């Protein structure tokens, strides 16, 4: 049995089609990434899968339970961490967890031990009796995730779990997600952080304007766009003339400045490296580093969502 099965799911808001005929499955034990630009239909999909919003048509099941017809049973097996940290600022961390445990029917005998364990895992146990309004954004986020895990769910929905957080919170949250997955928890993760999806997800779905553009493992998706390999150069000196000259090397399709580096996009990295090195030697410019890069998941995302349309004809960057 799959953790999630979605069949021809559609949601209309008036004339707007937020989710359009979406079909996918998430097997038990998988970390499934759901990527898409703002307004693509990610949150609407999560709201349907968690039974908050009813679909216009189509079905979704959670461990075999239809989310519309068997809502309470389906919800009992999931933990939900929304994009906004929806915790009660006027309650302490402990009381927030106790409230969540009661809503999820966690037995009285288990509530306190589970809450203690989660607060220690997320490194906020020392502040358990403090009201949450004094917490940092990262601590609030960690508490929100802890509240989503209070019923030890076999399926966890995480909406942008690490968006805008400090490094410490990011590290803790990612480690917890990995540990949970090792224990068999299925994770449905939406994120804007494509590198995070690349590192953590077994498979990703890319959704745009309510339609799924692709579903596969990150590595397989990258292979579909081999044409966006790149040569990355870090140079001691960088000027508009140098960039212009490198942009005119044969087989360079595009050139972009990324921080203190230049990326030369090409289908033939070997010949571009040779030509670029010849040019640099001739001009007595020492390269600090030279790397060849395969296509990133971000590039797959940009291609599939059409976000590169505005940059298609771009050749040089100054």
């Amino acid at each position, binding site marked *: 049995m799959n953790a999630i099965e979605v069949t021809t799911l559609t949601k209309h808001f008036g004339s707007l089609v937020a989710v359009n005929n979406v079909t996918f499955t998430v097997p038990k034990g998988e970390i499934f990434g759901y990527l898409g630009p703002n307004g693509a239909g990610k949150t609407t999909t999560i709201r349907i899968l968690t039974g*908050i919003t009813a679909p216009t048509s189509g079905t979704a099941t959670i461990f075999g339970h239809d989310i519309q*017809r068997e809502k*309470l*049973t389906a*919800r009992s097996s999931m933990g939900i961490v929304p994009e906004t940290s929806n915790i009660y600022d006027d*309650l302490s961390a402990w009381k927030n967890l106790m*409230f969540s445990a*009661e809503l999820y*029917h966690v037995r009285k005998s288990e509530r306190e031990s589970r809450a203690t364990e989660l607060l220690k895992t997320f490194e906020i146990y020392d502040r358990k009796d403090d009201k949450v309004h004094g917490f940092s954004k990262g601590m609030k986020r960690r508490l929100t995730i802890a509240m989503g895990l209070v019923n030890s769910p076999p399926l966890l929905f995480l909406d942008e779990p690490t968006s805008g957080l400090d490094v410490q919170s990011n590290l803790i949250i990612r480690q917890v997600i990995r540990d949970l997955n090792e224990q068999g928890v299925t994770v449905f993760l939406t994120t804007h952080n494509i590198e995070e999806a690349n590192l953590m997800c077994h498979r990703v779905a890319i959704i745009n304007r309510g339609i799924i553009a692709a579903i596969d493992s990150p590595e397989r998706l990258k292979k579909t766009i081999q044409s966006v390999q790149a040569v990355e150069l870090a140079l001691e000196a960088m000027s508009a003339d140098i960039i212009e000259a490198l942009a005119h090397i044969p087989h360079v399709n595009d050139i972009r400045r990324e921080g203190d580096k230049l990326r030369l996009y090409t289908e033939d990295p070997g010949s571009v490296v040779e030509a670029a090195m010849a040019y640099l030697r001739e001009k007595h410019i020492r390269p600090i580093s030279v790397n060849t890069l395969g296509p990133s998941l971000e590039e797959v995302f940009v291609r599939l969502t059409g976000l590169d349309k505005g940059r298609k004809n771009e050749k040089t960057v100054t």
Partner: protein
Amino acid sequence: MVYTLENLKNDLHGAWAITRKDLTIYYLKPNIYMSGILFPLFMLLAFAVGRNAPIITLIPGLIAITALFSASSIEPVSIPIERRTKTFDRLLSAPISIFALVLGESISGLLFSYSICILMLVAGAILYHLSLVSILILLVGIALSCFTFANLGTVFAAYPTENVGEVMSLLNLVRLPLIFISGVFIPLEAMPSWGRAVSAISPLTYASDILRYGFEGVTHVGLVTDIVMLLLFVIIFQLIGNLLYKKFNE
């Protein structure tokens, strides 16, 4: 899906958890006290000052409108705030039914209002040496009235807004006229026939009537009618609340 006894047990636990959460967070919010206590008190003073009516004739009305304003003020404050902070989604996505949500929110209104009304009753008894005809009817009547008005507040709080003022404005469009058509300050017998007809569809009519019985032993519509009508309003508001929360959250 069949609604089992286990579901009912879980819903009642969930409702009680929501009630306790509301008790902890919202009972000290200033706008709840302003709307729930000070407003009915000033309303009473506006009517009482300059009139020589004995206090016993004013107390039932005061307690009835206090029940109306205090019980119906918790949810119109707490729910829009929770929509804004997104904590309301936490309630909507939990494994409890909409019934548990509506019930839990309404019970918090009931408890808040009941404690205020009892406080007023005790204060009245001490300060004015009020004699009561039936303390039991009075306590039951206050509880029923508070629960009815708490459900009314929960129904209005279903309006999908994050702005407390919007819900309060809508609610006051109903609460304020109720005071004038329910025999609180203007006796039912002094009203024209159309006024008496309209008063029959006001829950405040039955609330003030049952409280008057508790104080004075007199009732205009009958004790059984008062109890039946208040229970009927509870059921109607529960049904409407369940429908609205379901509709507005899909």
